[in-house]
């Protein structure tokens, strides 16, 4: 038996809109004008919220959070393409997509200011799972959700997000392997933003692409320009159709860039070159999408100014709601340990409340 190749593969890269906003007419999905404008508005709103959250955090009015600026073209088109029964399984850099899905603007404010109320959806039927802080865990969750939707004959797809750093986690590999073996209707999107806190893409994986990791599991994969919302639109629709037709999972690598810090608790100056950041800002998604809309005669400076004022106002209203003192109880943690009643928690709640009263409702002194 001679030595011979037993497997060959290639990975496509998809870009519809280049950095200048010039569209490839053959690949343009030709979305209706209203859909394009809707997409841009969501991206713009997500950007505004992110910028405002950074100011709030710097002013001590919000806790630590991971900025999303630059990632808008990944999750917004994805969420817009999803159906109401599909599951949106996020990590923590999908603010735009979460808003599209129906999460209120106040949710990230509450969440990142230390209130579980930021996880509570206005309606559980939105099918939006809570932010997953531990990296990678959400991939098997999405596969389980996808399996369940097929089992329950719901015709729903689970769409899961993870970062380039997350591809090194065991749960990423275990989850994709289960997805492929089960032919589960799940789409996994790697937001390759080049940095996992201080670790660059080159030190994270020796794979030429993140997309090709799907090949090893036996699923279709595609690398997409993640700063190009039209390419993301094309890619996610292909993957959703593939899943809905019973053919199983897809892996999409969305190549983007983390323009800001990992979270507000670190300073990228310590570990990356500012010239690299400057170059990345020229490729960011809003610039090219605005140019494309302008070229289609859908956008101009006056419309931009009006939208800027509108999203600023929307975010301002959410901040006002968020900063209105709430009357949420201190002892809610005792309500949600179990779905059944247990005496030791009654005793400990009484002890907790007595101690809060003893502290006189003031901030407890922890030395």
């Amino acid at each position, binding site marked *: 038996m001679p030595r011979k190749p037993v497997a060959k593969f290639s990975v496509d890269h998809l870009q519809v809109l280049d950095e200048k906003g010039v569209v490839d007419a053959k690949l343009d999905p030709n979305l209706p004008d209203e859909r394009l404008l809707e997409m841009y508005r969501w991206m713009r709103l997500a950007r505004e919220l992110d910028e405002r959250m950074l100011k709030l955090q710097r002013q001590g009015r919000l806790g630590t959070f991971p900025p999303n600026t630059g990632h808008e073209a990944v999750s917004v088109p994805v969420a817009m393409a999803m159906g109401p029964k599909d*599951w949106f399984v996020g990590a923590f850099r999908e603010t735009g997509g979460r808003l599209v899905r129906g999460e209120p603007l106040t949710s990230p404010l509450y969440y990142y200011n230390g209130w*579980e*109320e930021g*996880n*509570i*959806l206005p309606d*559980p039927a939105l099918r939006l*799972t*809570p932010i*997953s*802080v*531990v990296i990678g*865990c959400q*991939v*098997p*969750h*999405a*596969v*389980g*959700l*996808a*399996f*369940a*939707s097929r*089992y*329950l004959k719901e015709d729903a797809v*689970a769409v899961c997000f993870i970062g380039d750093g997350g591809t090194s986690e*065991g*749960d990423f590999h*275990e*989850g994709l*392997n*289960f997805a492929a*073996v*089960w032919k589960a209707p799940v789409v996994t999107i790697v937001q390759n933003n080049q940095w996992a806190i201080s670790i660059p893409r080159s030190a994270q994986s020796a794979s030429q692409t993140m997309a090709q990791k799907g090949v090893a599991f036996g699923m279709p994969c595609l690398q997409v320009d993640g700063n190009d919302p039209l390419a993301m639109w094309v890619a996610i629709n292909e993957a959703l159709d593939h899943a809905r037709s019973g053919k199983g999972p897809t892996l999409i690598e969305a190549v983007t860039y983390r323009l800001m810090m990992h979270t507000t608790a670190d300073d990228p100056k310590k570990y990356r070159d500012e010239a690299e950041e400057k170059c990345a800002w020229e490729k960011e998604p809003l610039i090219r999408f605005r140019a494309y809309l302008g070229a289609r005669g859908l956008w101009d400076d006056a419309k931009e100014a009006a939208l800027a004022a509108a999203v600023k106002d929307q975010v301002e209203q959410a901040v006002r709601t968020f900063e209105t003192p709430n009357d949420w109880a201190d002892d*809610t*943690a005792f*309500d*949600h*340990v*179990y*779905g*059944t009643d*247990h*005496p*030791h*928690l009654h005793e400990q709640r009484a002890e907790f409340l007595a101690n809060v009263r003893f502290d006189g409702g003031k901030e407890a002194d922890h030395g």
Partner: protein
Amino acid sequence: MAKLTMVQAINLALAQEMEQDPTVLVLGEDIGRDGGVFRVTDGLLEKFGSERVLDTPLAESAILGTSIGMAMAGLRPVCEMQFCGFSYLMMGQFEAHATRMRARTHGQITLPLVVRMPYGGGVRALEHHSESREAMWAHLPGAKVVLPSGPRNARALLAAAIRDPDPVVFMEPKHSYRAFREEVPDEPETMPIGKAQVVQPGTDLTLVSWGAMMRPTLKAAAEVAEKRGASLEIIDMLTIAPLDAHTVTESVRRTGRCVVVQEAARSFGPSSEITALINDKVFLHLEAPVARVTGYDVVTPYFGREKHYIPSAGRVARAIEQTLDF
């Protein structure tokens, strides 16, 4: 009513719960065609098909991780860890998500799932196959940890665990899998999770144990009762988290003496917690210090020398007598 081993009783609970609730499904390594390495799931694949009895790839974290997703979507997955010693690979999923999802979402998302795993020593198995690590799970708020001791309560508690609204770690004493049989009713039966059971009332001393240690505990109690005419109350904890402190402390309030028998290493285990609760609630009723018969704080030795490390009926009997004589 049939006389069943624990393996058969657990199999019966799984089959009956799957029959009466189409959202119940089982998944794990080798649980389908092979019926599980201990044959606990034998016959389920033939009965319920491969969409409800899933032979998974070999990955504990994804077995629990996908179960979490299934439970979020409204199913009731019962997943199997082939051995307790392999379960640590899914502990991240368990701590980060299974135990927290209810609190994280204030009850909007709940995870009714069961993680079954055989635990404990005495079956001449390889390394990693003999530990008793219930404390690791019990320490996590939001977790329920159940350890049956015989066929009848194993069947009833597993049925209750499957119907429970929270994640339950169901630890099966593999030493008792086929060691003895009990009458098990044909009709579905449940027992409450979080309730200990007084299996023998008595007045002189309270014996507390759970899981595989109930056998040496009962044997020792019979020996001492016969030898000295002592009246021993015996409590089978059945659930370790949340712990039924009331049943234990009310017993010790009456008897004033207590011996706790635990297979696991001594420190930071349920026996420590039970002793602390007795101290909190009934200290002034004690006639003697609470005695503990436990494993030692050592890495579980291979089975060539495990017999002296697992608490024996003799050790338990000596502790009972010392506590009675204090």
